[in-house]
């Protein structure tokens, strides 16, 4: 009994008492985050499903509208997001090693790359506004045959990339919280769960973009 109490008193301060050990605690946090990410997958899945239906119904209009997307910005943004996932994973690695300075540096780098992505996205939205490619009363399209059908792709474009951008903004907020926590010495090699699970969130948002990029930007370039 006395041994048991000593063991309890000696355990790591960040270990909640209903877990056997840190590994189990991290495991349950990771699993919980994955459950959330699966619901996110189904949420985006609904939009991917409606994209599938309309692209199947109007393939020529989708190819034509996709051709007007800014491929250069789309491709650069894909690279930026992949790079930010790389810096995020290095941040998690620094946390595992207990390297506070490296952790903060990589988190800030990830945040900057996320902001670069959002700025380029804003530039693209502005371009769409100037070209009157925003669905609604002001919509204009060069090819009159696809006037109505092209609006469906632009609507899906704004819904899907807009939802993705909102997830990026939330991710940026979470990164700021992590940077503050890291600066206040909240993390150690023994406990860095928030870094780990926000890393999972960041990579998930990256994966959504990996699928959005070819679906929105890369159809209709063969003509």
């Amino acid at each position: 009994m006395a041994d048991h109490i000593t063991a309890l008193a000696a355990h790591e301060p960040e270990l909640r008492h209903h877990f056997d050990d840190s590994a189990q605690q991290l495991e349950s946090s990771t699993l919980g985050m994955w459950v959330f990410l699966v619901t996110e997958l189904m949420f985006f899945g609904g939009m991917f499903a409606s994209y599938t239906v309309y692209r199947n119904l109007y393939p020529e209009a989708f190819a034509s509208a996709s051709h007007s997307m800014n491929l250069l910005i789309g491709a650069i943004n894909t690279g930026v997001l992949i790079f930010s996932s790389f810096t995020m994973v290095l941040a998690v690695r620094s946390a595992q090693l207990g390297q506070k300075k490296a952790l903060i540096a990589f988190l800030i780098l990830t945040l900057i790359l996320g902001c670069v992505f959002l700025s380029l996205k804003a530039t693209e939205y502005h371009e769409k506004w100037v070209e009157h490619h925003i669905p609604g009363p002001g919509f204009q399209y060069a090819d009159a045959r696809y006037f109505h059908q092209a609006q469906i792709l632009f609507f899906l474009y704004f819904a899907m990339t807009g939802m993705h951008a909102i997830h990026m903004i939330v991710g940026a907020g979470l990164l700021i919280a992590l940077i503050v926590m890291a600066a206040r010495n909240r993390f150690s090699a023994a406990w860095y769960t928030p870094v780990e699970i926000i890393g999972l969130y960041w990579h998930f948002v990256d994966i959504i973009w990996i699928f959005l990029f070819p679906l929105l930007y890369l159809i209709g370039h063969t003509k």
Partner: protein
Amino acid sequence: MNHQIVSVKTYAAVFFALLALTITTVAVSRLDLGEYNFIVAMAIAAVKGTLVVAFFMDVRRASSMTRLFVCAGLFWLAILLVFLLSDYLSRGWLPVSRWL
């Protein structure tokens, strides 16, 4: 903490593979492969997604329980897409008058 820490080299290799696949998918989209354009683009995206899930999200070393949850999510997404397409793609196969 219960795992060995992955080397920067491994992460860098995954990062460069992802960049190379992005360049490949842009290059392939300029070739006219007909139906295969879509299949190749989705195959490359699936490989990139798998790399991110396996290495960056560390699912290759995660517990069986976590892997089961990830697979269940993908399975449910497959139900959504496959059942939807089994409706839309099969319309008009049978000589039934349209009532939709």
